[in-house]
């Protein structure tokens, strides 16, 4: 069978032009996916098995046990969801509200501040299609899409022709990289690569803002006032510019406000936008849903009709302080990626993992419930890194439940 226009869930670009050739339920060939996407679609990872306390069990028992653990807990926490459909995320929010649980996702320690500023209307943003059609200035700040979102430059931001950019990259677009290290992206944009020392992003942002406001810019590292002025002038000449904020930038800025100020200064003469380089394919979707429901994008604790919010509700803080006494983890692997001292605390509380693939966390989980891959095996909707909604239609007939169905059944069992 030949499938057209399949959506890849390998990253938050959600490429929707993927071709696939199948023979029964096996994938023979994929077209137009990057290497990372091809691996995701083939499902190269080892699948998780359904277990209770490490022993294989059937899914009904596992769901009942999960419901028991969650309803008996005083302060349960639900975490993850960046790799789940909007429909599953809705169920998780419902479950958190019913349980008066903590709820948080990865945005809590990555792109949260950028998404928050956008949803609160504090900074202008745009869509990736607008970037393709209109952008003549692209700034990758602390981001390396060539590694993290391989098709970013070819589908939208630099190389393709667009309505107002008929000649594409050669003449119509300028791409700039500001980063603390050389990267695959800086290799391509080597004419406009500014390498800065770690932690100095804020300083450069302030200096650029000063330059745009007619002051003489100064920084403590090896960039001269002249160089900064030239960069500021290059940026402000743009007709349509987009700054793609990567983790490198977000991690080094304690507050996002200086970036907002820079964009304000640029927009006295130009038209700049900010976009988060979201990693997991639907992290932004979770932020949108929770924002609609509570006014916050992450880090909440439900309590009847009230919602508490703040750093004390973040997954790191809740785990570290031992506040939670049971955790439901969906499509995420905290044991594999959190700082060791915090991840270790997962071993002190009962944990339930819902995931298509085996993870470090699933190996220590009290209950592990395997799910279908949203994308190849399960349907749903997701929000791309630019906030656009994308519909995902599966093509493999899987016996596995989707995380939406699993969460629905846990909800019913409570």
């Amino acid at each position, binding site marked *: 069978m030949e499938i*057209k*226009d399949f959506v890849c869930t390998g990253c938050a670009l959600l490429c929707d*032009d*993927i*071709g696939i050739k199948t023979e029964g339920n096996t994938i023979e*060939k*994929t*077209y*137009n*996916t*990057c*290497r*990372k*996407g*091809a*691996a995701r679609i083939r499902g190269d990872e080892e699948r998780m098995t359904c277990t209770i306390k490490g022993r294989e069990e059937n899914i009904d028992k596992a769901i009942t046990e999960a419901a028991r653990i969650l309803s008996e807990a005083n302060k349960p926490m639900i975490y993850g969801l960046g790799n789940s459909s909007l429909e599953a995320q809705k169920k998780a929010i419902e479950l958190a509200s019913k349980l008066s649980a903590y709820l948080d996702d990865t945005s809590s320690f990555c792109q949260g501040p950028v998404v928050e500023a956008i949803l609160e209307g504090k900074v202008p943003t745009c869509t990736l299609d607008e970037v*393709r059609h209109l952008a003549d200035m692209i700034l990758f700040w602390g981001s390396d899409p*060539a*590694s993290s979102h*391989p*098709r970013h*430059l*070819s*589908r*939208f931001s630099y*190389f*393709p*022709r*667009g309505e107002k950019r008929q000649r*594409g*990259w050669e003449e119509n677009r300028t791409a700039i990289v500001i980063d603390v290290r050389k990267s*695959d*992206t800086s*290799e*391509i944009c080597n004419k406009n690569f500014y390498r800065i020392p770690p932690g100095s992003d804020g300083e450069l942002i302030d200096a650029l803002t000063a330059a745009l406001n007619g002051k003489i810019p100064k920084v403590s590292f090896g960039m001269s006032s002249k160089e900064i002025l030239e960069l500021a002038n290059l940026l402000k000449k743009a007709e349509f510019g987009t700054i793609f904020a990567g983790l490198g930038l977000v991690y080094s800025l304690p507050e996002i406000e200086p970036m907002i100020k820079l964009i304000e200064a640029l927009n006295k003469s130009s038209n700049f936008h900010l976009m988060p380089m979201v990693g997991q394919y639907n992290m932004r979707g979770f932020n949108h849903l929770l924002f609609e429901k509570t006014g916050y994008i992450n880090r909440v604790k439900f309590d009847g009709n009230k919602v508490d919010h703040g750093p004390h509700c973040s997954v790191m803080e809740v785990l570290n302080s031992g506040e939670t006494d049971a955790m439901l983890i969906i499509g995420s692997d905290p044991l594999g990626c959190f700082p060791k001292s915090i991840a270790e605390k997962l071993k002190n509380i009962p944990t339930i993992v819902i995931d298509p693939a085996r993870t470090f966390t699933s190996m220590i989980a009290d209950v592990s419930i395997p799910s279908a891959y949203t994308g190849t095996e399960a349907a749903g909707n997701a929000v791309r890194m630019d906030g656009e909604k994308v519909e995902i239609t599966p093509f493999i007939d899987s016996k596995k439940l989707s995380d939406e169905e699993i969460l629905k059944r846990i909800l019913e069992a409570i």
Partner: protein
Amino acid sequence: MASAMEIYQYLPRTNCKECGKSSCMAFAAALLAREVTVDDCPPLKEEKNKENYDILVKLLPPAESASETGMIVHTELCTGCGNCVVACPVNVAEDPYGAGSGKAPTSDKIILRVEDGVVKLSNVESCRRFGPQSRLCSGCIATCPTKAIEFV
């Protein structure tokens, strides 16, 4: 990609000239340019040099994988990003709204496309570097983040 010096280290280094070159170093340069193959050095095929022979074969992607235009793709380096697909002027001319606009290709006449996560060549005879009117084009080389494309 191996350098001539690296290749030289695995040659017999006796400068016996059996290969028709003036020295092993000259042979190394010729290997790199793919004017000759590893098999053109008779001493290298002797049993005692087998280990080095095998290393050299691995170091040098077989010349057959180069297209008539001399284009080689190091698939192990390719990330399937599609930059070359969008940047190639022939792709753009043949398929302006598909491959040339960053989308799935809609033409059979393009040179570069991505299959199974890596770039695949077809119609290489239309490459601008090829044929009587050839000119220097480096669209695919300049846009590749991992230097996976090479012309020999």
